[in-house]
């Protein structure tokens, strides 16, 4: 195989590798949303309890900001 031919093949391999990386990046970014959903699920369970604990006197900034009122 000539030097030119070898160089050409390397360039083609790089091109294909770059396209595969592009695909992997899209797959990885779409998987990220599962983590986001898990994070929000965790917050939706833990935050109301924490907020209620902190807003028993209904007088903190948190109470005012969130509208939680543990009367």
């Amino acid at each position: 195989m000539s030097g030119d031919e070898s160089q050409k093949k390397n360039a083609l391999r790089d091109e294909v590798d770059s396209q595969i990386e592009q695909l992997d990046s899209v797959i990885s970014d779409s998987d990220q949303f599962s983590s986001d959903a898990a994070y929000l699920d965790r917050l939706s369970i833990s935050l109301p309890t924490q907020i209620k604990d902190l807003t028993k006197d209904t007088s903190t900034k948190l109470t005012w900001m969130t509208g939680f009122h543990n009367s």
Partner: protein
Amino acid sequence: MNGWVKYRQTFLDQINAVQLSIKSQANPLRQEGQNLLQAVDHEDTQTVEQRIESFRDRVDSFTSAARNSLNGLESSVGRLKAEGEELEKQIQKIGYAMNELGLASFQLRPGEGVVDAQDATYMTPQKEKWHGTLFLTGERMIFERREDVALKKVLFIATQKKTIKEVELDLPIGYVQNVSKGRVSLLAWGGIFIDFKEPCQVRQAVFDVKDSEIDEIISTFNYIMSGEAERDKLATTGTPVEQRIPKVVKCQNCGAPIMQEIVLGERSVTCTYCGTVIQVS
């Protein structure tokens, strides 16, 4: 978070649909790419080049469409995530404030609520540095000095200590004219400058605080001073606005008019004619 609870199932359905669509198209394309890598070594370069060109066009077209779908999801979830992160941050801060308040040497007035508490160093006009906690309530700014005093020393080393807490500044928030950031000394870079308006006896208070907290503290001052905190509180507790606005305009003792502005956080004024202290809320 209520938004998330309502939106959760729709969002999960959207995620599943987008992920399924992306993987069902990306995986065959990925396999095709692996086959092309093999083909580069074993097949005619020109033929493979043409196949790679077609492959690249399809990958570009696919990723562009996939990115659009992902951006759509991101805009849906971005706001919820930001809201959740902000709430987590506020919970930590309020937890700290409530804890500090529980250990403080003073008490809040009836109906008064703590908004923020920050570890701060008060740079006094006499060039002293007092460490302590800066409390912001819906009505006042209070600086409580904290000092460790040695009760017993052995060979100049304190073996028994006691922490003394004392309120050094206790001012109605309505006296605050302006809060800005700036350099507080040669060694301590970041801090806040609080300017007060008349008739406040203190003209300015300077605090050395953590650089990362400066903008947040200024924003909290503005939150209270603008009346937003009061509006949020009223909206939550349901207390009518009219009942909280002081209506005292005459001295109860001599009947003289009270000309002095009654600012947010002031619960009493002194009659300039007879000296009677009048409760205004």
